[in-house]
């Protein structure tokens, strides 16, 4: 198992946001987290790169292992953890820098200065995110000149550049048009060969298309976690069925 969580509870001050989440995720799979807004799926996603630590008043209990390492251990270096667990956000958020510098950013902040190495890594990451052909002639241009879909793929390239083994995606295509969305989904399918991907999505069809396993969250609980095929044809829990068939309420 690449990732293992056991009885994870998370509190925002008094609010119990995650309730006893136990989940196992295999390497090189895509896991979709679905559920209505505020169900805890994004919070759970951010457990894996300790992004919740940035919020005041967050308390977390339980065990989270990545490659057998307890990531909330005192010995864990958060910056190293985040190098291993990349993240792509809902809204494309490239930095106000050139395309090249955006991808190089993660390398630079991690102390890599070898120019040749950086150039190679940037090119490789852009190839991986299927953006190279579109940007190879304008690496010095501002990242803001790219379209929304391109910006999102740039953000994926940026995450890939520091060679993570896990990629977290928080509704990566929700701000994009259908063609850009299709490209991101295709990319996820490609990346699965080398990375373990966890994706939060509000789009049921997207979860069905891209993921191997799906977890349904409701009110901070993991209601059902199973093969995506089973979730979408024969969910065991009536709440799951109500949610995915759009009869929630």
């Amino acid at each position, binding site marked *: 198992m690449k990732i293992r969580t056991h009885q994870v509870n998370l509190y925002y001050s008094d609010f119990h946001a995650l309730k006893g989440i136990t989940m196992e995720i295999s390497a090189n799979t895509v896991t979709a987290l679905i559920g209505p807004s505020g169900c805890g799926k994004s919070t759970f996603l951010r457990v894996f790169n300790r992004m919740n630590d940035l919020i005041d008043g967050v308390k977390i209990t339980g065990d989270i292992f990545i490659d057998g390492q307890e990531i909330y251990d005192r010995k864990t270096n958060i910056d190293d953890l985040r190098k291993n667990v990349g993240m792509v956000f809902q809204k494309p958020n490239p930095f106000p820098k050139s395309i090249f510098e955006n991808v190089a950013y993660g390398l630079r902040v991690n102390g890599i200065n070898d120019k040749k190495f950086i150039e190679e890594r940037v090119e490789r990451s852009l190839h991986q995110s299927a953006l190279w052909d579109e940007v190879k002639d304008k690496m010095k241009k501002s990242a803001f000149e790219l379209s929304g879909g391109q910006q999102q793929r740039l953000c994926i390239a940026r995450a890939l550049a520091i060679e993570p083994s896990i990629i977290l995606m928080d509704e990566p295509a929700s701000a994009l048009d259908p063609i850009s969305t299709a490209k991101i989904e295709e990319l996820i399918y490609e990346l699965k060969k080398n990375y373990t991907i966890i994706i939060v999505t509000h789009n049921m069809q997207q979860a069905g298309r891209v993921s191997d396993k799906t977890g349904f969250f409701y009110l901070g609980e993991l209601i059902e976690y199973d093969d995506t095929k089973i979730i*979408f*044809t024969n969910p065991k829990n009536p709440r799951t069925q109500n949610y995915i*068939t759009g*009869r929630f309420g």
Partner: protein
Amino acid sequence: MTHLDEELKQLKSEITNMWNLIIQQLKKTQEAIVTFDKDLAREVIANEKRVNGFELKIDRDCENIFALFNPVAVDLRFVLSVLKTNNNLERTGDIAEGIAKFIVNANHSFDEKLLSQTETLVMFEEATDILQDVLTSFTNEDTKLARRIFQRDEMLDEINIKANSVVADYIRKNPDNLEQGLYILSTIRKLERVGDQCKNIAEEIIFYVEAKVLKHAKGNQKGD
């Protein structure tokens, strides 16, 4: 009620109407055999067009629901089962039409003795009844009733098997009525197919309601 619910309800009433039409077709065919009423038989043949019309309409409706609503889970299974049931019903309709054609083509009325010896009419009753029961189990999502269909289909099989020797005897005794014997045997063969179609539909109902796939399972597992 969601838009999809509305569509599914529509689909259900559509296929129920088709179902009732086919039950009527079988009943009329049976009556036409007993009374040797060629006009009634012709009516059944003409009505087959309506059955085909239903089939096309339901096919298209299912297609639209898939394309526009991307149904999942229970909705998906429902539409899939309707799609397959639609196919099975259409074939059942063909069977009624086929038998009606025998009546139109036959030279004189069917021998009552032969009909009773072969239990053709019993079979007719039973087949129509089974089809009616499958409809009830579909309407009420009653898988218990659907499961009983498998048992009842066996009775049709028995009549079908017995019919071979009965008709052979009859032909030996009445060589002149060879043609009539063959018509009756063919009718029995066709009615036996009605049972098979109903069995398939029952499987679809169980799949839709319980998400269990019974197809190609061993006979002894069907009852559980």
